[in-house]
């Protein structure tokens, strides 16, 4: 039995390394999910931070459980809130919009209302507790 073997120098084949790396790269590219969360940003008032605001600078915006909007006492269709707020903001740029929802209001309706306010470029939005 011939046990003598010649050692021919050990080398790792590197020619396929690029392919292996490519394969890994593609795997990570495919599995990476860039599902950036998107949504409506809002800042809540701090606890115990109650400011006295002039009545003329407040616009009460009520939304009931059926999704009907009452803007400062007048009923307004949800899709027209944007225009109405724009008009009122043009009259008074210090206007604070106070959003108040009913307990049974659907969250979807509320988000559409906030969206309408955002689209009217209203920056001062205050969120009151539900009733």
């Amino acid at each position, binding site marked *: 039995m011939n046990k003598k073997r010649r050692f021919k120098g050990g080398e790792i084949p*590197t020619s396929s*390394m*690029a392919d292996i*790396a*490519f394969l*890994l*790269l593609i795997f*990570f*590219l495919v*599995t*990476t*999910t860039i599902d*950036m*969360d*998107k*949504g*409506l*940003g*809002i*800042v*809540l*008032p*701090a*606890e115990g931070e109650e400011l006295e605001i002039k009545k003329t600078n407040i616009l009460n915006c009520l939304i009931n459980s059926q999704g009907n909007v009452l803007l400062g006492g007048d009923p307004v269709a949800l899709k027209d809130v944007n225009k109405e707020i724009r008009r009122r903001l043009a009259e008074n740029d210090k206007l604070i919009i106070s959003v108040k*929802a*009913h*307990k*049974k*209001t*659907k*969250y*979807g309706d*509320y*988000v*559409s209302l*906030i*969206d309408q306010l*955002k*689209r009217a470029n209203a920056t001062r939005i205050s*969120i009151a*507790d*539900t009733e």
Partner: protein
Amino acid sequence: MKLNRKVNISSDIPTASMPDIIFMLLIFFMVTTVLREYSGLDVELPKAKRIQKLKSKRHTAHIWLSKQGQISIEDKLVRSENIRHIMYAKRAADPQLTISIKADKSARMGLVSDIHTELRKADALMLNYSSKTAIE
């Protein structure tokens, strides 16, 4: 004036450093990949038009609110009055924390308002109502 010049430049793209470049890309993707941490509840998000991106995934905590009124944080069902303790700890660890509310569009505002109150108590004031892009 001689115009006949011999072109001696070889037109091969050097491929010797290609594995290094690919490895670098690979490492970049491996490092930036954030696997989804929590599966959350099954919710149908509301739609909105004026939406903005969340600044960073690392500075975001999620609260799920299902149609049935279940509240879930980090895949654990919680009662609304316990939110303040969880969020207070999170907020203390990360002052830049934004809370992303993933509520179902037919969830009731009473519960959302409870969450608001709890978050105010926990001093976590940056909020994001997670929503899908509405098509005009």
